[in-house]
């Protein structure tokens, strides 16, 4: 497994390099944002550990660039700023996990293992409906290339609808597939989730068929191949 370590502090870099090496990773180290961006862009890393406070280009900008350029490598951000607003900003930029300094090396290793497990199997058969795409194994979805940020329940709803696109799906059917137990099945639930998913994928993609249920269709003018 190749890992890119982006960290400007020399001592921390040395420690992490040693720890990652001991854990069996092949480690490349970038001490600043520019080099990090270059390496991340050109080398096929399995995972990237990115410090946010970097010289030249800050970590969030580097991450945003990678994501804009279509790099999907899982990224764990290291940040001294533990406020949730900072964490949210990091995730908005495309991070997959975060770790607040100071941290234990073992925790970093555990998080990396989890990230790698999660990303294993990327580039599998994806479901598509017009500009809407869903990768069941990576549990990722996107609209026109823009990644969607869905909660697991929203994802599950969209997944089910994409597997049955073009067909009218009743609320009862949706509720049964949304929750795997007999759990919180009030009639409002589906409306709430349909509303949220619509907001994220575009409201025209999910059609309400009065009295019957909902139907997912590509937008007019979108071809299946789009």
């Amino acid at each position, binding site marked *: 497994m190749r890992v890119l370590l982006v960290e400007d*502090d020399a001592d921390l870099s040395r420690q992490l390099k040693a720890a990652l090496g001991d854990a069996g990773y092949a480690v490349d180290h970038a001490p600043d944002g520019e080099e990090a961006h270059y390496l991340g862009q050109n080398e096929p890393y399995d995972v990237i550990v990115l410090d946010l*406070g970097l010289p030249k280009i800050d970590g969030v900008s580097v991450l945003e660039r990678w994501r804009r350029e279509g790099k999907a490598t899982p990224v764990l951000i290291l940040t*001294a700023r533990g406020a949730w607003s900072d964490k949210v900003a990091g995730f908005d930029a495309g991070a997959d996990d*975060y770790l607040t*300094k100071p941290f*234990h*090396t073992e925790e970093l290793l555990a998080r990396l293992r989890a990230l790698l497990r*999660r990303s294993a199997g990327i580039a599998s058969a994806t479901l598509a409906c017009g500009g809407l795409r869903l990768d069941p194994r990576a549990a990722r979805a996107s609209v026109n290339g823009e990644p969607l940020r869905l*909660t697991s329940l929203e994802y599950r709803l969209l997944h089910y609808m994409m597997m049955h696109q073009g067909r009218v799906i009743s609320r009862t059917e949706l509720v049964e597939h949304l929750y795997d137990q007999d759990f919180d099945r009030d009639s409002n639930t589906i409306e709430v989730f349909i509303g949220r998913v619509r907001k994220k994928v575009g409201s025209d993609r999910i059609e309400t068929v009065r009295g019957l249920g909902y139907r997912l269709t590509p937008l007019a003018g979108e071809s299946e191949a789009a």
Partner: protein
Amino acid sequence: MTGQAASNRRAKRPQDWGRWFGRPGRSLTRRLIWLASAWILVALVVAALVLTQAFQESALRRLGAMLNETIDEIVVGASRTPHGGLAPQIQDARTLRLLSGKYWQIMEVRPDGRLVSLARSNSLWSYDLTLPPDLPERLNAAFGDVITFNTTGPKGDAETREPLRVAASMKSIPRHEHPVIFIAAIDRSEVDADTRQFARVTLTALLILGLGLVSAVFIQVRIGLRPLFDLRDEIADVRKGKSARIGRSYPLEIKPLAEQVNRLLDHNQEVVDRQRTHVGNLAHALKTPISVMLAEAGTTQGDLPELVRRQTKVMQGQVDHHLRRARAAARAAHGLGETTPVAEVLDELAVMIEQVFRAKDVEIDWRAPDSLSFLGERQDLQEILGNLIENAAKFSKRRVRISAGGNGLGQMVLVVEDDGQGLPADQRDTVMQRGARLDESAPGSGLGLSIVDDLTRAYGGRLTLADSDMGGLKAVLELPAAQAD
């Protein structure tokens, strides 16, 4: 309380009468009212005096005219006496009746300065008019002119002698060796009484006018100074945190003051922000070295690594503590009137935390009306909910449930619960304390719940922990809300 009592006592001491007369630094209202009242009083008293004086003078002028006539009559009568005698016959009834209040007398000035009466009115009987001793000299200086003065008449005893107005003139009479003084006198008491009456009426009228003016001044001052009181109230609101700046518009004179107060507030804000940034930067800058030392000390055994581990823990605690204080200070200065949509924050946090805990396949099911907003800063709500949801996710088996709703009374209730082991009642207080960690194996600094509790309190809200029917812990938050209808 004691300060209040002391100032009350001080106010009663006599040397503090100055405050009632508007010494600078005391009440502006009182100063203005007292000054205006003093001026009104002085002006009115002067007016009363001037008016009374004018009234009296005009009355005396009328008396003087009558006296002049009498002098003319006795001069003419005296000069007409065929034998050179000076005994004019005057038919005015009042000069004939004894002590009638109207008198005349003719006197001769002898070379030795003595005055010798040549003739007098019947009303005088055998009395002489009381005359000032320097009269002959004054008359001589104004020879032929009439001089008027006051004196007392023959009527009444020593205390109640009638007041007289007297006119006198010195003339030389043909075939008469010495200069002769012609004197006419009339009772002045009526004029005096009239003057007194006039003064009384005038004074009463002016006093009423004065009272009216003082009340007008009082009202004027209260109305005129109202913007100042308003400004005072607004500044008090700023201090209490009810508003961020002076917002109302003020009259030209105190507008600059209001603007300066606002600039001062901005400046304070800047200073606080700068300090906060400094503290934040310093604290964050320390975190990397702390990480390094922790990691280094963790790999080796012995006394020194143990010491380093302990001390870096202390450092870490300090850093966290000061960061929280800096955030709290920033919160006190910011965040007025800001609203944050709850659903947005829940959505971004749910997506993010599910992703972090994907290894466990945590499922966060949240419900909040779109119209529900938190009355406060976004990053505070993120901090509160982020910590609560992260904790719930950390200790859950798989499920986290969040529900939010407003009560329509400016409050909302947020419930975060999980299906984990839960927390025994006796440990719930402990986890709210700073740095407390019950489960050392779960990641995190352990500060989560105490930060949530601090923040919630800062917003006047409440955090309570209970058992969830899902099996785990149930955190109930009450926070200020702004719900659109």
